[in-house]
């Protein structure tokens, strides 16, 4: 088993008294591919919000990296710089800017205003962008505004931006939503490929998609872990069938 990269223990958060995440514990190693499934409102997106610093938990610990530092005191941008990248449920790319500009912004480089102001394009960076465009099938679209891309391409661009950040942990929220079967297939490949060198957490509703990821699955329900294991293991769990599959 790979060594632990991220560890949540006893994390809880409530919104106006409603416990969206309830005493949740979770671990992921590096490298590892992990799928998270669960019914609507199970707390999957909130789980990502907590890791990325968008939502502060009421309780619990989040430890990160080799030194086991706490992520709780860090801002969203600092957490991102620590090496956690996130893809949102709704594709969010910068539509007014070209695909290349989107990727260039995400590229791993110093993030301070003055570093950016005096940033000089390097052939290294250009090559990185080309390589990512190749990986995500966007080579022919590099000069197009991201707003012109199809829904599936926007999802890929966002995955590409994640890759450009070179994160150690990648959080991907419903990447296959609204995709054609062929696009799903391609997305699966990208994620499996990415998980060879880093930790990747994929939230997905679609069982077929999860099956093809061929990885350990965590089932969330009402803000805590209901079951964990191989896809066959969790899908045969009576509790899981009850809350999720048996609907």
């Amino acid at each position, binding site marked *: 088993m790979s060594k632990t990269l991220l560890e949540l223990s006893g994390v809880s958060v409530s919104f106006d008294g409603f416990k969206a995440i309830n005493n949740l514990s979770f671990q992921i190693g590096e490298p590892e591919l992990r799928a998270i499934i669960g019914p609507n409102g199970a707390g999957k997106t909130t789980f990502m919000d907590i890791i990325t610093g968008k939502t502060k938990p009421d309780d619990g610990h989040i430890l990160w990296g080799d030194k086991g530092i706490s992520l709780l005191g860090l801002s969203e941008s600092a957490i991102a710089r620590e090496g956690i990248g996130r893809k949102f449920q709704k594709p969010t790319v910068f539509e007014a800017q070209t695909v290349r500009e989107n990727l260039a912004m995400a590229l791993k480089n110093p993030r301070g*205003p003055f570093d*950016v102001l005096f940033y000089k394009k390097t052939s290294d960076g250009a090559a990185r962008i080309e390589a990512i465009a190749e990986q995500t099938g966007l080579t022919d679209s590099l000069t197009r505004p991201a707003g012109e891309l199809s829904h599936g391409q926007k999802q890929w661009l966002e995955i590409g931006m994640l890759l450009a950040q070179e994160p150690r942990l990648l959080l991907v929220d419903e990447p296959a939503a609204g995709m054609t079967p062929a696009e799903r297939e391609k997305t699966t490949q990208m994620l499996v490929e990415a998980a060879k060198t880093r930790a990747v957490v994929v939230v997905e509703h679609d069982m077929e998609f999860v099956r093809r990821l061929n990885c350990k699955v965590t089932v969330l329900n009402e803000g805590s872990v209901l079951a964990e294991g191989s896809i066959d293991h969790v899908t045969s769990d009576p509790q899981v069938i009850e809350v999720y599959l048996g609907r």
Partner: protein
Amino acid sequence: MNRSFFAKNPSILWFIALLGLFTLGVTLLSEATGTGLISTSFVKTLGKTLCLCLVAIAMDVVWGYCGILSLGHFAFFGIGGYAIGMWLMYARTEVIVSASMANQVIPPSATEVSDAIASQIFGVVGASELPTIWSFAHSLPLQLLMVVLIPGLLALVFGWLAFRSRVTGVYLSILTQAMTLALSLYLFQNDSGLRGNNGLSGLQNIPGFESTPQSLVSMAFFWASALALAIGYILFAFVISGKMGSVIRAIRDNETRVRFLGYHVESYKLFVFTLTAIVAGIAGALYYPQAGIINPAEIAPIASIYLAVWVAIGGRGRLYGAVLGTVAVTLASSWFTGGGAPDINLGFYTIKWTDWWLVLLGLSFVAVTLFAPQGIGGLVDKLVRKKA
């Protein structure tokens, strides 16, 4: 900045070339250095317009590019004006006071001179002592430093507090407007140390150049304004190009997403807000010696709203758009309110443009918002694209 920067942004060279031609043209037609076709007062109007263009491109960067609708940038402009005005007034009063005291039998002491200057400047508000904020007024270099330092520091502190608490959108606009209003109300007070509603006057007289005719002084300020606009334009074009521009526009469109890319959004906003405030201060410092007078009414919130109107009419998110909007609206304004436009007699009612200009401006603003959201600049862009 290198050659490839200009090569990639040919519109900058176009702008500089046009500005250069315009400056040359005005020079050749002015009273001081040319045929005299353009009056000295009109040279001043043009010079002032260039300063307004400079603050407008600053506004475009902060609002059009970074998405911060600041209703405070005209306050920074005014502060720049006050800062230079303090030196202009002090130094000129010093010349006058020294001259009148020169015939005294006993030569006046330094304190006597300074007291005389103080009562000369502050007599109107019933004070005779130099307020502490005038401590540097005797020194041009120090006051010039204030021109950039005060707007810069104010913007830095205000922006730090506001951005850190993640105040955005209309709430931020209201906050900047409140700052502007507070500043202007403070300045209206007689004991503000800046002569209350009298403001600072006689700023067109430049100490040390008493015998230089105004026609020449106005030319010098006109050139300085053109130069400042050119430098400001290149500076902002540099900021909004390349990766910095990319990040700034991304913050405008979705700042949450930018945070998750690892950028500390607040630092970027603070950088843009402060830099543009400093440029606004410099623009004001060049404007008010041409206007001759500055008073708190200039800083009133409405001025900052006008600034937003110019940029909106000119077309947000393109620097030359801000210039076009400013030139179009200010020249139209002085034509309509200066009696240039003939009144329209409807028989039962006469439309006097001095009264109706603001209505017209308001209607144009609404029309632009509804029918040409990209402003005049957007129309120009369309024409250029059609030809190409």
